[in-house]
């Protein structure tokens, strides 16, 4: 197995001793802990939790295992044959760190991170009309990652809903919750603050401090939003978010005590667990047009409640904001949040490593929400680079005592299959124009049906019977093309010994060389027949559909 051989030079135990030494020196020199590298701080906390829980230290991942993991996590795709061979053959000590730097500067990094966040903010089946076509938003988000715009800044843009949905993208977020300030409140607090207020919508929360007035106090900030159609552009309806000067959410008390025809009381905006918003009074005789005209950018209100909320949410000293994002990105790379699930940070759902979470949130603030810096520290930690194998059945180990096993997303699967079989090279060799379809050649219909929607929202693995029927019975036949330039062609028409060809097969699909037993088994399978064509196709299919390919581990 990949994990049992070729341990990297950085064995854990000596590293740990070294780390303790470093910390001791820093402390004695009266330097603050935060001046230590975050990656070391992470390892210190993770290891001390192992000790507390009497868990044995673990070995580090093999190079192939690490490369595949970090390519998938940073770029959303496995390394191609040339990339993995180059990395495995690199003899330098710091090659992992160099690889991380290279991948963080790869244009695919921005594309993949934007797709991850697009799923956080929209999901596979977003509510609202027109939100399924949001290339404006997706492009805008990709630019944010390309420029490494600080997280607090781009979140502010989303919440202030600046610009339009086609050119700027950001306002598309609120289009999901058109005329539904309560839904918008649930989404905003859950996605950006990591807290769940939905119970408080109908009754005071049974286990948490949230009251119905917390919920409606937050909803009051969003009660005046309107989704306004501002003409068309690039054949897409263009929306902007307008905000009125008047309008309130009405609170009628617990839902069980509701009566037909009972009108609620207007609730004033109040910051979550904080002060009421101070807002200027409107003139007594103020009158407002009932509706914004379509096709025009609406005028700004005299006083924007929404902007006040945006500023408050994304403030560094907001007690929820920095912890929520530090925890969410931690979970993206480490499998589970220190508070898990990541959008339920509450008193009843305690962090597994409270001091580590404090340290991560503090680092996030100190580095001004620089996500690229934060991600670099995470993936350079020893904790991220542990082996993926072991006896533990939990896919997302609570004490991070093994790398997590997470399924590839629909996009990651497609891109990885394409890279493995040389789809791009086949297209080039055939002289065909590159497809503009993000989901070529399998198409988004089947991909979403079998791999996308089953994992919607919560991220649980739902790949059951149906995905195997698709994989077994012809769904991926297009990727087994025998055309010039592809993996299949290069294996069938090679003069090299089968041993070498099997190595290439494994490196192309599983980012590692086969074990001796695997090599022998595959060589026997492939060289058994006069015409190996069918068998090569079958062998590629086997590695395309196996668990080792299906998961990032």
């Amino acid at each position, binding site marked *: *197995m990949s994990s*049992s051989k070729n341990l990297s030079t950085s064995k854990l135990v000596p590293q740990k001793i070294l780390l303790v030494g470093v910390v001791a020196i820093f402390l004695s020199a009266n330097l603050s802990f935060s001046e230590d590298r975050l990656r070391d701080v992470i390892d210190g906390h993770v290891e001390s939790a192992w000790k507390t829980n009497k868990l044995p230290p673990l070995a580090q991942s093999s190079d192939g295992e690490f490369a595949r993991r970090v390519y998938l996590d940073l770029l959303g795709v496995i390394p191609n044959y040339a990339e993995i061979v180059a990395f495995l053959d690199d003899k330098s000590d710091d090659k992992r760190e160099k690889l991380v730097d290279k991948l963080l500067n790869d244009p695919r990094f921005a594309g993949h991170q934007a797709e991850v966040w697009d799923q956080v903010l929209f999901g596979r089946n977003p509510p609202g009309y027109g939100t399924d076509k949001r290339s404006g938003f997706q492009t805008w988000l990709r630019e944010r990652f390309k420029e490494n715009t600080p997280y607090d800044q781009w979140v502010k843009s989303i919440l202030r809903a600046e610009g339009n949905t086609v050119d700027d993208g950001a306002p598309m977020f609120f289009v999901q919750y058109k005329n539904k300030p309560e839904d918008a409140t*649930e989404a905003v607090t*859950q996605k950006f603050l990591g807290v*769940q207020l*939905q119970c408080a919508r109908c009754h005071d929360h049974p286990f948490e401090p949230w009251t119905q007035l917390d919920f409606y106090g937050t909803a009051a900030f969003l009660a005046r939003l309107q989704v306004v159609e501002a003409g068309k552009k690039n054949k897409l309806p263009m929306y902007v978010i307008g905000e009125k000067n008047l309008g309130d959410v009405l609170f009628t008390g617990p839902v069980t005590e509701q009566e037909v025809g009972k009108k609620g009381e207007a609730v004033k905006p109040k910051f979550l667990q904080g002060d009421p918003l101070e807002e200027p009074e409107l003139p007594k005789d103020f009158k407002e047009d009932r509706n914004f005209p379509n096709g025009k950018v609406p005028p700004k209100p005299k006083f924007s409640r929404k902007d006040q909320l945006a500023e408050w949410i994304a403030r560094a000293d907001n007690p929820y904001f920095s912890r929520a994002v530090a925890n969410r990105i931690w979970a993206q790379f480490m499998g*589970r949040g220190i508070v*898990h*699930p990541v*959008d*339920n940070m509450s008193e009843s*759902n305690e962090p597994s490593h409270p001091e580590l979470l404090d340290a991560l949130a503090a680092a996030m603030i100190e580095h001004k929400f620089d996500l690229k810096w934060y991600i670099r520290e995470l993936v350079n930690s020893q904790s991220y680079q542990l082996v993926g*194998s*072991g*006896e*533990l*059945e*939990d*896919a*997302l180990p*609570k004490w991070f005592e093994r790398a997590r*096993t*997470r*399924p590839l997303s629909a996009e990651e699967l497609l891109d990885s299959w394409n890279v493995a079989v040389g789809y791009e090279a086949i297209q080039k060799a055939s002289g065909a124009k590159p497809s503009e379809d993000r989901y070529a050649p399998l198409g988004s219909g089947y991909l979403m049906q079998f791999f996308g929607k*089953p994992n919607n*929202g*919560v991220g*649980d*693995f*739902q*790949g*059951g*019977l*149906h*995905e*195997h*029927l*698709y994989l*077994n*019975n*012809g*769904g991926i036949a297009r990727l087994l093309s025998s055309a010039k330039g592809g993996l299949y062609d290069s294996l069938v028409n090679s003069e090299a010994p089968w041993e070498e060809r099997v190595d290439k097969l494994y490196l192309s699909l599983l980012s590692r060389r086969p*074990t001796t*037993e*695997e090599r022998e*088994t*595959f060589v026997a*399978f492939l060289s058994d027949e006069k015409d190996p064509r069918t068998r090569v196709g*079958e*062998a590629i*299919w*086997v*590695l395309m*559909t*196996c*668990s*080792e390919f*299906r*998961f990032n*581990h």
Partner: protein
Amino acid sequence: MHTMECPTHEHVSRRALLKNTLATAGGGALMNWGSLFNSKATAAEVKKNQKRCILLWMNGGASQFETFDMKIGRPTGGLFREISTNVPGTRVCELMPTIAQNMDKLAVIRSMKTSQIDHPGGIHLMHTGYSQASGIRFPEIGGVIAKYLGSEGSDLPNFIKIFSHGNTGAGFLGPKYQPFSLSPEGRLPSFSTSNLNPVNESRRNALRTFVEDSYASGHKAETARMHREAYDASRRLQNVQGVFKIDGEWDKYRDLYGDSAFGRRCLMARRLIEEGVPFVEVGQSSYDSHADNFVWHRGLLPPMERAWAGLMIDLEQRGLLENTLVVWMGEIGRTPNVNNRSGRDHYVRSWSTALAGCGVKGGLVYGESDENGVDVKDNPVSEGDFFATIYKALGIDPETEHYTGVRPIPIAPFGSKVVNDVLL
């Protein structure tokens, strides 16, 4: 969770095991995925009963005024007449003559009072017992039944839908309990059938098994195990493709079920139940009669009621009815007032559902609406009460809990009451 290997669950009571879930609640959402000691043991205990369930799903919401709760002579009554049934004193709509002759098998609930008035919300509610909530994927009733009444390693999936409505599926129960959906015509979903030469398929499978085994020897994560198990299930499905071919049997049963698409679906459901599938949902669409309510019901009810009665008779003749619960419901009822397009709109303050078989008291009407059918007069039944009753009839404790994170979620919502009066 190593305890799952332990065979002692035979000796442990279910109550004790359910308590055990509280102690292990910190394990997170994954623990529900069929791998936990408590869940498995509970499943083993319940499975002995061999109970089954067929859900007849009236999509769009059939009218209570045109079926079981007519208001003859009242302003809210419709155009149809009432007929007597084989249960003295109980009368139903003239569009259901076959059901009328089998009323002794049915317990009708005339006092449904539920909380979701539109289709998506109602379809979710009446498939799960819960209103939609962001961040929680509630399992459909079929997923719950598949988990507690299904058999491991069966060739047929444990949760089958024919003309599927609702897309919540297994929710947090995990991939093992996902529905397998046939088309309205009973066709298998795309890619269900292998077109490979069996020699090639088994050769390919042997190589794949080698690869999977070598990965599994070092990687024990349960998601990967589920992936392997699902692959095995996809191959086993090839063994039973004949079960889905009903043309031959249809010729014999066409008269009993009535010559309709819904009748064929019901026959398919009976075959699947007989083959050991614990849950089959059969859909009919659409009762959403905002206009021309009476025309729609005149078209939809006769084939439906004929097939429904035929199904119960067929199950009874085979000795299956006493262990097969037949549930009849949609997501909503319809308004007392007839609108200016001769339609009835959505209504959930008072409407009707029905149960039969599997320990249900036949020939019974439970609950009552007021004289115009505007509100429930007696014995209101909430969605939670209805689900609790279904689970109780099937021998599954309605208080059985699953966890998402630290939040306990019973299969019927907290506070639901079993309607014991409709059970034997």
